């Protein structure tokens, strides 16, 4: 589902953030991306979200080689990826409801369907009673969960999350992870960047560890299938 083939990323004028990374997250899999600060976790997610482009190598998501997507195909692609950001990227002047509704408004979903799905998503993250409140009236943990509700409301096939538990106390972090686990069980492919090894170990899921821009180890599935290939 998510496949990196020998991907190198060098930011303008900086050293290489990723050096020949190959990895593969299978459809329906839940994988954690771990590693120290600066190891390149966020860079991997940015490449998937098409916020950055690889310097070399190819990224394939759901059978689509991202390097070959035309500009006008990018919005449609992004609509199919759920993203949770470390800083949430919520709209401060909109209610919780409106924030979660945004992806559905973008895809032109009907009002009634939007109402149904938004409330279901808010319910899943335990924020149904907060739908009228703007994000600034919510606690950091609630904001994080609101961001997750927005990422799952359009039922994406793939969900990527960057430090989704960064702002949460340990109990809440566990709760959010449990929520991810449930979403994964209904078939969502997930790649979650986290440096909270404790938490990752607690879930015993697949772990891809980066160090200095290279894959150090991949705890469950070996990466043989991705070496040397260049997308479908």
């Amino acid at each position, binding site marked *: 589902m998510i496949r990196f083939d020998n991907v190198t990323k060098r930011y303008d004028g900086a050293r290489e953030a990723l050096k020949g990374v190959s990895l593969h997250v299978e459809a329906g899999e839940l994988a954690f991306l771990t590693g120290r600060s600066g190891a390149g976790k*966020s860079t991997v*997610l*940015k490449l998937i*979200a098409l*916020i950055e482009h690889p310097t070399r190598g190819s990224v394939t998501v759901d059978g689509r080689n991202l390097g070959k997507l035309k500009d*006008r195909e990018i*919005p*449609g*692609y*992004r*609509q*199919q*990826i759920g*993203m949770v*950001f*470390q*800083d949430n*990227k*919520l*709209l*401060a002047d909109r209610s919780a409801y409106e924030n979660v509704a*945004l*992806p559905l408004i*973008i*895809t*032109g*979903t*009907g*009002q009634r369907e939007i109402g149904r799905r938004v409330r279901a998503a808010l319910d899943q993250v335990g924020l149904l009673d907060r739908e009228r409140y703007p994000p600034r009236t919510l606690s950091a943990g609630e904001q994080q969960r609101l961001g997750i509700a*927005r990422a799952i409301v359009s039922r994406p096939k793939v969900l990527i999350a*960057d430090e989704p538990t960064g702002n949460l106390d340990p109990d809440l972090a566990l709760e959010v992870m449990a929520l991810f686990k449930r979403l994964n069980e209904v078939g969502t492919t997930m790649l979650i960047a986290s440096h909270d090894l404790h938490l990752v170990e607690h879930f015993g899921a697949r772990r891809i560890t980066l160090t200095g821009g290279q894959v150090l180890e991949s705890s469950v599935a070996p990466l043989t299938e991705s070496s040397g290939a260049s997308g479908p």
Partner: protein
Amino acid sequence: MSLSSWLTRHAQNAVGALGTLSRNPVATALTVTVIGIALALPAALGVLVQSGRTLAGGWADVRDFSVYLAPGVGLDRAEALARELRVKPGVESVRVISADTAVAELSKDPGFAGALAALEANPLPHTLVVRPLVSVDGAALEKLGAEVQKSNGVDLVKLDLEWAKRLSAVLDFLRRLGFITGGLLIAAVVIVVGNTIRLDIQNRSAEIEVAKLLGATDAFVRRPFLYLGLWYGVLGGVVAMLILLVGLWALGEPITRLAGLYGSSFELGGATGSSLLAVLAGGVLAGWGGAWTAVARHLAAIQPKID
């Protein structure tokens, strides 16, 4: 996407843009007033020019010219000449005033009555009064006069060309002035709307960035700003219409009086309908155009980034 959800989406954007405007009523009122004034000025010139033309038409008796036949030329010749002239291009009508009629008219004036009675024979020639079409300009009128002058039995053509030349020069000047100021002020509206929307885009860059991250198309991101421009144009157009209506109402009475002094019944009203519509259309186009300039230049610059 179905047609109904497409319509819903546009309706929501239109209403949403109005909401954006109403959240900053003072700033909106100022911008809309500036746009309104800018649109009203060229429209006022337009009304003036149109009115001038109507006025010129209304002054038909000023345009009339007299053709005096030579003494001794008979009334039948006068009638024949009138028939000839009536079919000439540029001639609206020809009236024959016989010498007898002229004397009868003149003797109603007590100042002349005594003098006329003292004369044995009628001293006046038969006269034709020619009314040219409104569309005939100074040069054509001159040519027409020269032709008539050459006709058999014509003594004198009394043509006052100066007024026609002057009026057409003034109208021409005003019309060009209207085009130039119109062009400049429409450009000003485009700039004002473009700049206002540029600021709005900057204020909402976080929102635009998030929307793009979530897969919003360029059209989706653009639409609210285009509607904003459209509303600025519509509201500015309405303000311009009000300015025009109030201005014309204030000027209407003195102008009618002025026209009355020139023996013409003249109403400003007739010229205004199309100008009011033109003002609204100009506002809509300039608002939409201004929004496009801002959107085309500044939206692409906002690309999502995450840290």
